[in-house]
């Protein structure tokens, strides 16, 4: 029998000290429309502005009635909304009583929950399909929530109390276990992998080795990337369908379908099975069916004038649920997708199978966008707040949120350039595109979820806050007024109005406030987070001797592909109970009947549940950490449970299996038997052969100059002309220094070569042998079969000296030295010393 206890998580509602000045202005904007009746669940879209006449009844009796009027009554009492039926002569409750707002206030109180506006009967009724004036019941519910929240802000001392309620207890359902052997895999998924993925994912290439030559290795790698319960959500399928990752036959959709079909075939070969009986499991829960709402308010939204929470999750309209009219709904076009757990994802233009899709964009009408102009120019300040997930840090001049008319005309833009946020704005002190960016090199923008607030006030100009902290960047433009804003522009998310500055990423929330948020308010909104959070209470009383015992997680859908589980704690809903010396080891998250293969954060947990760490009503914290696990069938379908290696007296001894087979290393093509010497070896070789030390200034200068031009790897097939040129310069440098130094040259040419003879006779007859002999003996080596034959070298060197010495007016000793240097360099810089 479920018990209800108050849980001491207290979420303070931010007090709202000032109601928006705009409310009175809004009165003039609304217009009366026709009437609807009954409690039909039929959707009644109505895009007209609400209407209200001038209120002429009794004045609000109290400040709270006044707050009710400004926030709720003014927005709902019109004939095209609740005022159609819940008026002075209509259905009860008559909270839209047009004649006396004090009566309306009294009628409203029983159907609102100021502590938890989202749980007001007024909200849940509409959310359940009761005469929403928009195409989305959720959007109407959110709008009314905003209105009640605005009203509640005027009440003092309100706190939110999250009550933990025991869920229905049930055992984890069955699962589709992976087959023990790779047999079926080898005939279903594996052929696709080896056919289309082996260029990269074969043995020894890029992990995972999905296309390994060993099918067991491939199967082992593929398991964590296949979902037998929801093949469409398998990583192998999503990589093709969503990421367009190396599809085949020019169609990612077809490729994904083919892969999904093979995984389905593998799944079909498996008989559903109960949860592994060896597992020690908790009771099971689903997020949609068993989750307790864990957040209700906590954001500061006193001055919000436009709010996008992107909760709808389908369709082509993103609703402005601020409750401030006119509603500035956005029309989605191009590559825009809804993000699970609330949000919009903007993608690039693409073509698949002949179909072209433009880059994503969400745009409001110019008329509705005028709300921004009217309300922000009136206040002269603003906060633009957004939860942003840039898809990458490489895009430039990409528009995240813009209120503009064209690429070159705007009132306000928040954009991305690499790892910087850009704020472009028009004011009386700037042109219409004045740029203010986060500091280069600070890398403020990261491709992860970030809370970004752009503040503007006439005093401070623009300021940027990221994740609750001021970046410290100072607006180069002095503050000014917004009075020159153009009221013919449109609000666009994810792109420029012309569609030519697409931004890739996700927006989880966007809000405009017509007062600049204070740093504390910004921090509050950052800490409130984004998306709907739930508590999941996993029952464990069947495992331990503690009544109504649960392990509780705060859970949310992190993005379209994963759930976030955080901050587990143990608690008994029986205030008189407490654990005593209960060991808890190796806690794992399970989904749809089996432990998830990735994202386990508490599998090494080793803790004792004991009364010393336990506080009645608060429980015992198990960990401050969180983790994400993959979505399979979606929040409504996925069933979670916990498993334990040990909890109390129950134990599941986990023994790690044997190692999977090692990847088979491929045979490499036969490599050349010889290779190049590297730069240091060449230098050392030349020094050793010539006797010129490497520290000689001339040669060391040359070496420093050409060092990185010389070979650095042995692969002879990579030899380059530039390397040969560097070697040449080194050889000439060394030979030059040797010949110039009479001691060194005498030591080298110990055969007595006569440098005092002019070139015309220095190489005649036997004199040539005095040159070639030392060159060949000392640089090439003697009696080495892999070196050239000495006779061939002598012939070549003879031809060389003949050529070089046969010139007019050069029968000098200087020429003789030159020819010797050339001959030396020819041998020293040749392959005989370069390769080994």
């Amino acid at each position, binding site marked *: 029998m479920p018990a209800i206890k108050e849980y001491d998580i207290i979420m303070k509602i931010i007090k709202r000290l000032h109601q928006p000045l705009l409310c009175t202005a809004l009165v003039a904007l609304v217009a009366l429309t026709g009437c609807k009746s009954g409690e039909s669940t039929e959707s009644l879209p109505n895009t007209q502005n609400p209407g209200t006449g001038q209120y002429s009844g009794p004045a609000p009796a109290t400040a709270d009635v006044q707050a009710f009027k400004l926030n709720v009554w003014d927005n709902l009492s019109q004939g095209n909304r609740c005022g159609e039926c819940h008026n002075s002569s209509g259905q009860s409750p008559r909270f839209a009583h047009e004649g006396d707002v004090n009566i309306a206030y009294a009628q409203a109180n029983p159907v609102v929950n100021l502590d938890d506006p989202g749980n007001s009967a007024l909200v849940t009724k509409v959310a359940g399909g009761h005469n929403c004036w928009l195409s989305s019941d959720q959007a109407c519910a959110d709008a009314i929530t905003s209105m009640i929240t605005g009203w509640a802000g005027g009440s003092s001392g309100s706190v939110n109390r999250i009550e933990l309620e025991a869920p229905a207890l049930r055992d984890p359902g069955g699962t589709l276990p992976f087959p023990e052997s790779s047999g079926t895999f080898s005939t279903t998924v594996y052929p696709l992998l080896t056919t289309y993925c082996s260029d990269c994912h074969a043995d020894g290439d890029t992990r995972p080795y999905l296309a390994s030559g060993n099918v067991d290795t491939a199967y082992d790698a593929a398991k964590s990337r296949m979902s037998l319960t929801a093949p469409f959500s398998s990583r192998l399928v999503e990589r093709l369908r969503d990421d367009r990752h190396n599809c085949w036959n020019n169609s990612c959709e077809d490729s994904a379908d083919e892969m999904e079909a093979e995984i389905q075939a593998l799944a079909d070969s498996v008989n559903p099975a109960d949860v592994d009986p060896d597992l020690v499991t908790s009771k099971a829960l689903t997020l949609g069916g068993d989750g307790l709402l864990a957040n209700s308010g906590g954001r500061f939204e006193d001055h919000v004038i436009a709010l996008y929470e992107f909760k709808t999750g389908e369709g082509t309209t993103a609703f402005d649920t601020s409750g401030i009219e006119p509603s500035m709904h956005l029309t989605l076009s191009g590559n825009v997708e809804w993000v699970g757990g609330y949000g919009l994802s903007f993608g690039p233009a693409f073509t698949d199978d002949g179909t072209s899709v433009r880059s994503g964009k969400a745009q409001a009408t110019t008329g509705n966008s005028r709300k921004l102009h009217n309300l922000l120019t009136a206040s002269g300040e603003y906060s633009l707040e957004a939860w942003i997930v840039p898809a990458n840090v490489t895009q430039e001049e990409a528009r995240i949120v813009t209120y503009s008319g064209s690429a070159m005309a705007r009132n306000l833009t928040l954009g991305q350039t690499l790892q910087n946020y850009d704020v472009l704005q028009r004011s009386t002190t700037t042109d219409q595109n004045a740029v203010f960016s986060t500091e280069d090199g600070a890398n403020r923008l990261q491709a992860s979820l970030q809370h970004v607030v752009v503040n503007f006030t006439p005093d401070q100009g623009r300021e940027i806050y990221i994740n609750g902290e001021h970046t410290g960047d100072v607006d180069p433009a002095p503050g000014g007024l917004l009075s020159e804003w153009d009221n013919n522009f449109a609000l666009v998310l994810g792109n420029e109005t012309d569609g030519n500055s697409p931004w890739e990423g996700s927006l989880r929330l966007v809000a405009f406030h017509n007062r600049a948020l204070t740093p504390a308010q910004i921090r509050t909104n950052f800490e409130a987070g984004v998306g709907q959070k739930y508590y999941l209470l996993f029952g464990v009383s069947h495992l331990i001797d503690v009544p109504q015992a649960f392990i509780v997680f705060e859970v949310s859908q992190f993005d379209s592909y*994963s759930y976030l589980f955080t901050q587990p704690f143990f608690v008994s809903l029986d205030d008189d109970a407490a654990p005593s010396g209960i060991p808890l080891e190796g806690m794992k998250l399970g989904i749809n009947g089996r432990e998830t293969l990735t994202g386990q*954060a508490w599998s090494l947990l080793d803790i004792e549940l004991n009364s010393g760490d336990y506080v009645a009503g608060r429980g015992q914290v198990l960990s401050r950490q969180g983790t994400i696990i993959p979505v399979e069938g979606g929040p409504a379908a996925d069933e979670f449970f916990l498993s334990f290696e040990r909890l109390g007296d129950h134990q599941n001894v986990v023994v790690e299996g044997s190692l999977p087979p090692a990847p088979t290393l491929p045979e*490499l093509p036969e490599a050349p038997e010889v290779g190049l010497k590297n730069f240091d070896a060449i230098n050392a070789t030349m020094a050793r052969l010539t006797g010129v030390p490497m520290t000689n200034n001339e040669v060391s200068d*040359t070496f420093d100059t050409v060092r990185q031009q010389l070979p*650095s790897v042995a692969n002879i097939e990579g030899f380059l002309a530039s390397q040969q040129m560097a070697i040449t310069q080194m050889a*000439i440098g060394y030979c030059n220094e040797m010949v110039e130094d009479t001691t060194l040259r005498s030591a080298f040419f110990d055969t007595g070569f006569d440098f005092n003879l002019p070139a015309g006779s220095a190489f005649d007859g036997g004199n040539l042998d005095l040159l070639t002999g030392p060159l060949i003996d000392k640089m090439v080596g003697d009696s080495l079969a892999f070196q050239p034959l000495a006779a061939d070298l002598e012939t070549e060197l003879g031809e060389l000296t003949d050529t070089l010495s046969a010139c007019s007016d050069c029968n000098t000793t200087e020429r003789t030295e*030159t020819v010797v240097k050339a001959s030396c360099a020819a041998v020293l810089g040749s392959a005989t010393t370069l390769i080994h």
Partner: protein
Amino acid sequence: MDARSWSFLMRIFLGNPRLKRIPGNRSGLPDNTRPKAPAQQAPLLLAMLVALTPAALYAGDREQAARMHSRLTGVPPSEAVLQQMTTEIDGGDPVAAAYIAMDDPAFYNVTVKNLAAPWTNEAMTPFVPLNDYTATVIGLVRDEADFRNVLYDNVLYIGDTGGLPAYNTNNNAHYEALEASGADLGDSLQRVTQSTYTGLPSQATAGVMTTRAAAQAFFIDGTNRAMFRFTLMNHLCNDLEQVADVTLPVDRIRQDVSRSPGGDSRVFLNNCAGCHTGMDPMAQAFAYYDYEYDDNPELGELVYNTTGMTDPDTGTRVQGKYLINATNFEHGYITRDDQWDNYWRMGDNRRLGWDGSLPGSGEGAKSLGRELAHSDAFAQCKVRQVFEQVCLRKPGDAADRSELDSIVSSFRSSGFELKRAYAESAAYCMGE
């Protein structure tokens, strides 16, 4: 080799149009024999180079000795040394011949230096000055020390020749001067106690990982994960890609790692997590280290938060860099000390061969260095690196891999003397 090719090879030098631009070139070589542009000649030259090689494939003892010497040292042997080596080979002891070759200073100045130099920088280029990392590797090889000490011992090698600036924790001048002097590195390095020269507590030393060069390369900026990754690459011959395992626990992955990069958590679960599951719990060993510099990274030094110190950014001994970008995922791991754990003792990476006599966890870089250096992967990596350096190719077939296993066994039984691996690799690749 035919005469035409040889003639061409010689003339290419004489025809180099860039000769006159060589700094300090006073050779005044004649310019009347300038042939084709070098770029046109390169393919021909390459073809000629290859044409030179067949004789090397079927070499006699003398040729084997010459090749062995050149592969081990980069320079040709003197005739006397060649004779000695030939005799050893002829006597059936090519390993002894290799040890003769390794007496040549070029073995240290060229070969070992170029083995280690790429390990000392992120670009993995050998074009870097001599530094304390490289010198320490050379010294350990020369002294035939247990090479595993390279990752955890309190050891440093400094120059012991005159006229050098003293070792300085703020610059590399000492080693650059030593290199510029042309000193024989096999004879001019002195083993010293690292902590004495760097000021680190002895328990904070971890071989080359705590040298100044390594700190400049891998502790600079960032999150210190670079030290782990490059140590893994340079000493276990695995990049993170090869050891990625998404099935390991994610509990030690820090807050700075986005769980939904670009809004897609699949990327984290299937890619990022694969590396970080193992890396982050081990890189925690470096939590107290940083490399501090002002404007010029060349003039900075390794710093370490010793016992009792409190880092102003963290309030603990942990460097501030370990807690940066904490809002990327606030539920991630918060580093509070330098406790490391080797999660790769679970899962596929058990195959790296961890030492069962070690606990697989510890505190600080020294014990992590021991964990890494005592793995099978370390020994295999060192032998593989030496093999590739001496044989000029990767082990490519079953015979090569079998030989590699054999050399690893010898490396172990020798007490992890790297020269042994050099000698046996050179013997294997000396030609037939």
